[in-house]
């Protein structure tokens, strides 16, 4: 296979490759879908907070749960997945290159994902699938909803195969060399995603599609939920790891520094691969059918996945401090001043990092076994993931957008867009502080998530929630302004910014950096350990669930207004 940009043996392997025009078109296609999704999903979010304020009713007979389904599916599944797959492709292209054949297969991935998205979206818009993005059985959506979702997942697998092939060919051409850090990270993320999405694919293909088509009379509800959450937790790490890629390997370059440690960055990604998957029970802690001892074992494994995040926190602060000291800023916190606060490529991800402090702390609380009963299905949880995915991850993605889009479209990030971006970041931070803060408090007071406006018969408790729902409406409205700004920025960077060359920032290692150990790329061992941990965490409880199954459930479509 003819590799574009053949790297000569004597060339520096760390040198970045150029992205040709045809590839840029592919990557931009992913970005178009992502930003269209951002706009639609954000609009749905605005409508939700307004309805929940109690002073607004949806027009044209649109249902609250219909827009909630759109919001969840299009932001949590479509926006994230398209942005991530597109961004990861650019990382691979920059570091290991892409062949013409790989590009063609990648287009196939794009179209499978896009057609799947359209099928699912139309089903939801017709009101045939108001089952929310978790589609818990025995609520039954129209079969097209599940078929569309299956297509999206199959499309991501095609992308994963391309990514693995890209690294494989590079390694063949560079015997004995360590793979580029970003290519290593992308590969880890796609291995994790592939292993995890097998679970939800099995649920959709084996359980939901035959059952919704009427070929199977009943469905095993707990099995479907367990398969879903086997996928559902790694899903959040699939969102987070691309943000970590930027934090580890891109932010240091933007602030004028070097990688803190190539080996530690890789080690943390390997740990994420190990511990992201065997932890799904921490989403099922208050369910009746799972043995509590196994719940606790998965809680312990969940706590293990916190460790690589602790390492990441240290590495980030250390990068900031080392870079600052090298620039001559002394004292205990003098290095803090050197950070490029006026550069949105840094500022947006930085605010994302800040949000991960309460986001991470909240996550530890959620996973704390019996303490989960305090917050489970309260709006605290909604507040939690609006900090993690909707602030930490999305602000980092926005931070990437500011340089990635002009890099792909051959334009420049101008001073005025940079300034607007800083403003956008502040708007986002303030809006989320108000909305997510109110959600956390209301959740501790018992307010439920995923609920349209209700006065709950006028109880004193429900009255006390009203003020927080009003605050959420204010925060949500501010956030919608942030979305409008971001969509404007995207359009500007895509079509109207001045032509030029925008840097694709990738940090380098220190000249005298300690070499990365060879065993770090023992892929077979990493995959074997991952599978062993999954088998350990799931085999016994899963067999137990199947052996002690109650009679299955028939489909219910009338509760979602679809009979």
């Amino acid at each position, binding site marked *: 296979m003819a590799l574009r940009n053949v790297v000569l043996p004597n060339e520096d392997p760390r040198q970045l490759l150029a992205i040709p025009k045809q590839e840029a078109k592919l990557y931009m296609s992913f970005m178009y879908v992502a930003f269209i999704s951002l706009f639609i999903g954000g609009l749905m979010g605005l409508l939700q907070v307004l309805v929940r304020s109690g002073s607004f009713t949806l027009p044209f007979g649109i249902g609250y749960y219909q827009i909630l389904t759109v919001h969840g599916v299009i932001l949590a599944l479509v926006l994230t997945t398209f942005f991530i797959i597109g961004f990861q492709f650019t990382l691979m292209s920059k570091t290991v290159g892409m062949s013409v054949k790989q590009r063609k297969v990648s287009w196939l991935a794009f179209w499978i994902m896009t057609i799947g998205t359209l099928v699912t979206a139309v089903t939801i818009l017709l009101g045939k699938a108001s089952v929310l993005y978790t589609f818990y059985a025995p609520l039954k959506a129209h079969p097209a909803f599940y078929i569309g979702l299956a297509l999206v997942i199959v499309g991501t697998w095609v992308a994963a195969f391309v990514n693995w092939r890209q690294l494989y060919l590079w390694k063949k051409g560079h015997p004995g060399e360590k793979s580029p850090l970003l290519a290593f990270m992308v590969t880890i993320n796609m291995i994790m995603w592939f292993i995890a999405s097998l679970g939800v694919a099995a649920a959709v293909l084996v359980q939901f599609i035959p059952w919704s088509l009427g070929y199977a009379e009943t469905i095993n509800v707990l099995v479907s939920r367990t398969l879903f959450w086997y996928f559902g937790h790694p899903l959040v790490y699939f969102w987070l790891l691309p943000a970590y890629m930027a934090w580890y390997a891109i932010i240091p370059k933007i602030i004028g520094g070097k990688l803190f440690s190539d080996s530690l960055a890789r080690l943390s990604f390997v740990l994420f691969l190990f511990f992201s998957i065997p932890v799904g029970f921490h989403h099922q802690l208050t369910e009746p059918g799972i043995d509590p001892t196994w719940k606790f074992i998965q809680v312990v494994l969940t706590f293990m996945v916190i460790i690589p995040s602790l390492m990441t926190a240290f590495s980030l602060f250390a990068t900031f401090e080392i870079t600052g000291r090298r620039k001559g800023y002394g004292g205990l916190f003098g290095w803090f001043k050197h950070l490029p606060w006026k550069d949105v490529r840094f500022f947006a991800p930085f605010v994302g990092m800040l949000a991960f402090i309460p986001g991470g702390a909240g996550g530890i609380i959620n996973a704390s076994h019996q303490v989960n*009963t305090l917050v489970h299905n309260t709006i605290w949880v909604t507040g939690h993931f609006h900090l993690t995915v909707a602030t930490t991850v999305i602000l980092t993605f926005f931070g990437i957008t500011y340089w990635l889009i002009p890099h792909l479209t051959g334009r420049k990030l101008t001073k005025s867009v940079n300034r607007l971006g800083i403003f956008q970041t502040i708007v986002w931070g303030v809006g989320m502080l108000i909305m997510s803060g109110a959600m956390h408090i209301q959740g501790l007071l018992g307010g439920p998530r995923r609920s349209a406006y209700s006065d709950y018969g006028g*109880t004193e408790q429900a009255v006390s929630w009203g003020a927080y729902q009003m605050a959420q409406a204010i925060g949500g409205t501010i956030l919608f302004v942030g979305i409008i700004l971001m969509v404007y920025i995207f359009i500007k960077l895509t079509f109207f910014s001045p032509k030029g060359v925008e840097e694709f920032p990738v940090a380098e290692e220190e000249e005298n950096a300690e070499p990365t150990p060879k065993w770090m790329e023992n892929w077979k061992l990493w995959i074997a350990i991952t599978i062993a941990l999954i088998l350990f965490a799931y085999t016994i409880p899963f067999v137990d669930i199947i052996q002690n199954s109650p009679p299955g459930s028939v489909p219910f479509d009338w*509760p979602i207004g679809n009979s």
Partner: protein
Amino acid sequence: MHFHKFEKIWLTFGIGALVLFLVILGYGAFYLGTHPQSHGVTIDPQNVEAHEAFKPENLGLTKVDEDRYIVNVVASAFHYDFGVDADGNAINHIEIPKGATVLFQVVTKDVIHGFNIAGTNVNMMVEPGYISSMEVEMNQAGEFTLLCNEYCGIGHHMMYTTVEVYQ
């Protein structure tokens, strides 16, 4: 692979805190029995009345002993069935004395529901085929909202009732 001395300190502290959390949680769960509900008792979701506890006459609040109560509930979209009162009207409010020990047993006839007495630790998923149950001591007085906190359809937010814990 080299760890900076301070990173070792940080990881020791961090992992130590995590271990401490787990020890506290594990002690509560395994020695004091504060596991989240997990009994794994099954029932036929299409015929919950076949079970003694969920026969229509056994629904709602029953006093079994001094300061000991059982509350049996059948959930369905979109309401909780607490049985009927002496006049044959559906019960939508229960009253429990403060300090009483109450065993909640809840099943669903259709889709998944939640069962949360807002502001208390009574918070269970109710799934077809399983009896959700939890024994708690009602230690706070006041009026509580009992609501469905797992999406169950278009009337999900209308699925609630009230629980009064009196002095």
